[in-house]
């Protein structure tokens, strides 16, 4: 995978001394506190993805919940062949893209100024120190453009990986990313 994941598999200093691997094994047996500990260590990474892909705080919160419910359901399929963070991140992308597709079938979201203000407030709270003008420019992109730009330039996936995730031809993904970059640059000008 092209994405440079943070080292969220490492134990944190919040009193949680157990390794991710131990927590995963405990959670597989139905141990909810162990799963909560996994959530505490990984949810910020997943929520950042949900927030940027959706451009909507409320939707991102729903998506975050969906991702972790799905993770709970599929935990038995995680065999430790990759980092738990990598497995979860791919699962999150699948869930988010699937939900956004289903949502798009019913309404083409138009991002209003009010939506953007709402998102900017959420971004200010959730991403302390981030470049708000850039976050706003991303949120303002058409959905497909935002989706591929986030996966490519923020998350660091390769074009071929994004093509597989989205079911779109590599050439189309490239064209969408290029257009999105240009739109972002123009929005910042």
């Amino acid at each position, binding site marked *: 995978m092209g994405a440079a994941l943070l080292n969220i598999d490492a134990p944190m200093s919040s009193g949680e001394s157990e390794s991710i691997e131990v927590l995963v094994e405990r959670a597989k047996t139905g141990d*909810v506190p162990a799963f909560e500990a996994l959530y505490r260590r990984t949810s910020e990474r997943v929520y950042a993805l949900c927030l940027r892909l959706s451009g909507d705080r409320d939707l991102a*919160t729903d998506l975050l*919940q969906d991702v972790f419910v799905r993770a*709970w359901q599929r935990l038995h399929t995680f065999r430790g062949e990759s980092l738990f963070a990598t497995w979860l991140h791919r699962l999150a992308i699948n869930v988010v893209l699937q*939900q956004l597709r*289903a949502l798009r079938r019913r309404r083409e979201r138009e991002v209003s100024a009010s939506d953007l203000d709402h998102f900017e407030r959420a971004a200010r709270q959730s991403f302390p120190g981030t*470049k708000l003008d850039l976050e706003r420019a991303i949120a303002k992109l058409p959905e497909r453009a935002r989706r591929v730009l986030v996966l490519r330039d923020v998350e660091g996936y390769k074009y071929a990986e994004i093509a597989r995730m989205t*079911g779109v031809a590599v050439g189309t993904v490239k064209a969408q990313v*290029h257009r999105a970059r240009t739109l972002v640059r123009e929005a910042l000008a």
Partner: protein
Amino acid sequence: MISHVSERRMHQILDGELSSSELEHVERHVATCASCRERFARMSETVRDLGSLPKLASPPVEAWERIAERIGRAPPGRPADVAVLALPVARARARLLTLSLPQLGAVAAVVAALWVGALALGLRMAGGEAAVGSETALPAGVGPAARAVAATGVEYDRVVEDLERIVEEGRGVLAPETLLTIEESLATVDLAIAEVREALASDPSSEILVRMLATHERTRLGVLERAARAVRAQT
């Protein structure tokens, strides 16, 4: 001297897709062209800033409580509260329905029949004239089948939305296993539909894609009809 560097070429440079000789060629131009230099600098800065955005964001504190509530109902690897998986979809739905389930079943059957009939009619038509609903504005070059599908799509969407609402409201009476099966079936069909729609956006005159879309839509309708019947059987 080469012409100005195109946007596409700039993206290729940023993606590391140019050979060293191509890159050298561009660099020679950029070295002497202030306009291209400035454009490239701005684009590079944008891409660099995107890559350095924070990768962590604090979720709302109540998010875990809701997850705990949902997963607390089933052990891992078994169906949890999958009902909420469709929440964004449900929230997007604004229409209210006045038809009863039996009425809907009848309407769904009629719509499905119309769907197939209109598609067949559209496929038989020659000359690109719309089979049904001449008010449907489609771009030139769109085939007759696509026009037929577009004409019946409004009615289809209405029936599907009504069935979805019944299923949504009846989640509480369905077994978690049943809900999971419904959700996963719908998710699979939705994915297939989304993929065909994306392909159709690039090739709107493809009759094969239109047929595939109609097939997937009928499948979705069938899943929803069965789900709505299951809800009805429990209420």
